[in-house]
């Protein structure tokens, strides 16, 4: 399936992009992360410490075991620092 992925803050900077569309069969956020890590060293490095990464599926904050089989958009970003 086609999936929009968005990156924010240092994750966006490290990957050099804030948005990409991928073709994937990943069923969960965790599986998607595994897939991305396998792409190249840049992705492997950016996703090396998943404790420092949060995810949202279709604009809702989720845990990594969240189902993405019907998702349109997944976003990855560091812990938030608003306020």
């Amino acid at each position, binding site marked *: 399936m086609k999936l929009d992925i*968005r990156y*924010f*803050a*240092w994750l*966006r900077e490290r990957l050099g992009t804030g948005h990409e569309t991928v073709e994937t069969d990943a069923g969960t956020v965790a599986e998607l992360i595994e897939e991305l890590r396998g792409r190249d060293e840049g992705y492997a490095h950016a996703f090396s410490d998943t404790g420092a990464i949060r995810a*949202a599926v279709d*604009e*809702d*904050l989720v845990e990594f075991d969240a189902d993405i089989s019907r998702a349109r958009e997944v*976003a990855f*970003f*560091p*812990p*938030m*620092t*608003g*306020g």
Partner: protein
Amino acid sequence: MDPVRVQEAPFDMGAELNAFATTVGGAGAVVSFSGITRDVASGDLQAMEIEHYAGMTEKALERIRAEAMARFGLTDAMILHRYGRLAPGDPIMMVATASRHRADAFAGAEFLMDYLKSRAPFWKKEVTRSGAEWVAARDEDEDALSRW
């Protein structure tokens, strides 16, 4: 006035407080919190850049506001947050709450702040003479959620 606003433009916290207070009807207590861009330890902050996840941001803030309203029986609540490039001394964001008795307005405002800090998709980057650095999340901010 929309009770949740995410904007690049500066805002006037005094004017916001007055506008909020005129709409609160029978409430006797109004609490506000304003966050202001401040110098970091090094003291040479030139700007604060705030990135956010357009689309998710307002949704997240509206949910946090609705939760605070219900939980503390507030008569009203507002959240305003800027993004983009801010100068030291600029107001970054503001929340305000209204209730009949002060304890609810205080608790509601603290709840809004705790959730906004750790659950609303904003990221701050400090620009100093020596470069730019993303602000690290504080453990205390995550811990603060456990009290609710």
